[in-house]
């Protein structure tokens, strides 16, 4: 992979080290604690697209929320653009598209963009120009004066993406950006993502669509809160000897289960090792260089 032109240094855009997140609490009646992320660690190099792939409920959104500083991890550390939450300086350089629309339905699309743009410190012609650009990119220009409540689901997704892109952030965190979009828009938007990465922007995209994962530089596979594999799509295919990412995901999932069971038999220490899975190992290996090396 070539270096992005805007890469300032070698610090990863996102750096997750051994992150654990739990929800619920222990009460005298029942132990409601639930581990949602189990020792997850990976880095995202600047100018690359990392795709977080996994089925619903595997912890993708939790991970995104941790990256956005909406939550703090139970243990481990999250650093974004070299800063820890609450990102006093980095905030302005992050664009976020949450899973739900997160738009104001009772004002126009334009007013939505204007509002969020102002919060990012934009104003005047810069704001107007950026607004035009993102409307053009998301193909909403002719509907910009419509109330968001009159938008279709797909249009709302695109407007939500427009809000995330508005202040041309260096890091984009997109939680399922293409859900509910028709193929034509999806392809157009992914072309846009590639172009952004080419300009040195970093993207963290979650999806459960294997086809989209194929378009990323790195795929991080998440299954039941554990990182079961990480690497470029080609590497993952090669490693599992499969022809598509879907089969690769299934194969890796089976492997992870087997190894977990095998180690459970070996004792408590083994179980702890299982928690520190390939992701963590890969993370350690990645400390040296930008591109993750296969360490298997």
């Amino acid at each position, binding site marked *: 992979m070539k270096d992005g032109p805007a890469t300032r240094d070698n610090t990863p855009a996102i750096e997750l080290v051994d992150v654990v997140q739990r929800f619920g609490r222990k009460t005298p009646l029942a132990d409601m604690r639930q581990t949602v992320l189990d020792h997850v660690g990976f880095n995202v190099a600047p100018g690359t697209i990392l795709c977080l792939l996994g089925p619903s409920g595997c912890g993708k959104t939790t991970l995104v929320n941790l990256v956005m500083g909406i939550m703090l991890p139970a243990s481990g550390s999250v650093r974004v653009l070299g800063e820890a939450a609450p990102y006093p300086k980095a905030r302005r350089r992050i664009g976020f598209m949450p899973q739900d629309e*997160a738009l104001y339905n009772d004002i126009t699309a334009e007013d939505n963009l204007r509002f969020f743009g102002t919060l*990012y410190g934009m104003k005047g012609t810069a704001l107007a120009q950026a607004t035009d650009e993102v409307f053009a990119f998301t193909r909403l220009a002719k509907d910009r004066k419509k109330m968001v409540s009159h938008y279709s689901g797909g249009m709302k997704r695109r407007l939500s993406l427009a809000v995330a892109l508005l202040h041309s952030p260096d890091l984009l965190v997109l939680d399922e950006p293409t859900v509910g979009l028709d193929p034509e828009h999806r392809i157009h938007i992914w072309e846009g993502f590639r172009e952004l990465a080419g300009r040195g922007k970093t993207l963290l995209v979650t999806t459960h669509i294997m086809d989209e994962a194929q378009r990323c530089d790195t795929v991080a596979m998440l299954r039941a809160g554990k990182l079961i594999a990480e690497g470029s799509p080609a590497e993952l295919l090669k490693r599992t000897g499969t022809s598509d990412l879907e089969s690769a995901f299934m194969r890796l999932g089976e492997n992870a289960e087997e190894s977990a069971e095998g180690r459970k038999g070996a004792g408590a220490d083994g179980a702890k090792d299982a928690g520190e899975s390939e992701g963590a190992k890969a993370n350690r290996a990645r400390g040296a260089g930008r591109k993750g090396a296969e360490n298997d």
Partner: protein
Amino acid sequence: MTNILAIARRILLQFAHDKRTLALLFIGPLIVLWLLSVLLGAGAYSPRLATVGLPAGFQAALEQQDARVFLAGVAEAEAMLRDDEADAVLSMHDSTTLDIWVEGTDSTKTAAVMSAVSSALSDARKAAADDMGATIDQKRDELTERQAEAKARQEDMRAVLESVTLTLPDAARAQLPPELAELLEDGSSPLDADLSDMFTLDITDFMPVQDVEVSYLHGNEDWKMFDFYGPVFIGVFLFVFVFLTSGMSLVNERGAGTMTRFLTTPVKPAQVLGGYTLGFGFLALLQSSIILWVAITFIGFPNEGEVWLVVLTAVSLALVSVTLGLLISGLASNAFQVIQLMLLFVVPQILLSGIFGLSSSPQWLQVLSKCLPLTYGVDALRAVMLRGAGLMDICMNLTVLWGFIALFFVLAALKFRKKSARRI
């Protein structure tokens, strides 16, 4: 500041597009205020009285009152009372004691009966006093007349006696007792005394107060219950509406996920709260101005003071409500719970704000009412609208209100920051 303005602008834009809410924001309170004015502005209830064998004078006085009086027999009157055709039966207990038998379930009706009877009694007493005074005057005149008559007779007799004495021969005259000469010499008579001076029987000596004349420091005799409650309700409405709209707006933000997105922008918690306070403060300014204008011009709210002072108080009250809403809306996860929170945090304030007089309630309740912001707002509104108080008179109340605003704002900002870090 840009962020605060942007947030306030967005809130106002949302309301500007939401015509229905906007209309309800003004029409709702106005309809209720108008209903209240009709309900509480109606004159006092005129009681229905069944009378049994009352003295004619008292009966006449009763009929002069604002009451419907029915002459009835004993059994008939009782039946009327039981069938709710009369509110009270009036009869004579003995020759001088009035017996009032009230229906008794509705205290306003009982009070109306009592008021009618007591004012009839007072009228009857006044008539009796006038009557008595006239009788006394008449007797006095009669007495003076009789006295003059007696005096004239006496003079006549003296003249006759004198002339008789003069016609007597000197010898015979010398025989007369000297007392007679003295009597004839002395022209005075006990009848000369002005008996009317001695006769000082005056009704005022026995009944020093015979009539009542009322004058008003504030208001006039036409002020109805509504006039006293009107200002309270304006304050209460603003408080409730602003609490609901701001609380729900915040809950909606959380529900729609915009709050999450909000918090990933470089905006600071205090700016979010500031934007909300500003936006809803402006909305409250608009709402209170229009409501007050309509209430005073068309519904006939009393206003002795200056309108801007009323608006200032109303907006201060609304800001307390916004900041309180921001502080506790974190406890609600949907709109329904906002209403439940209102029951918990706003309704007690309304009850203790002065709608009901607290002077006879327990001490702790009075102290509690002094700890609630709405009490100060309502007090200030009443002071301005009923007593024409100026800025200096209510500055204490306003200071307390702004103290509450600052307190709630700071608490909300502290809580917001804590929550935003670990929000789920």
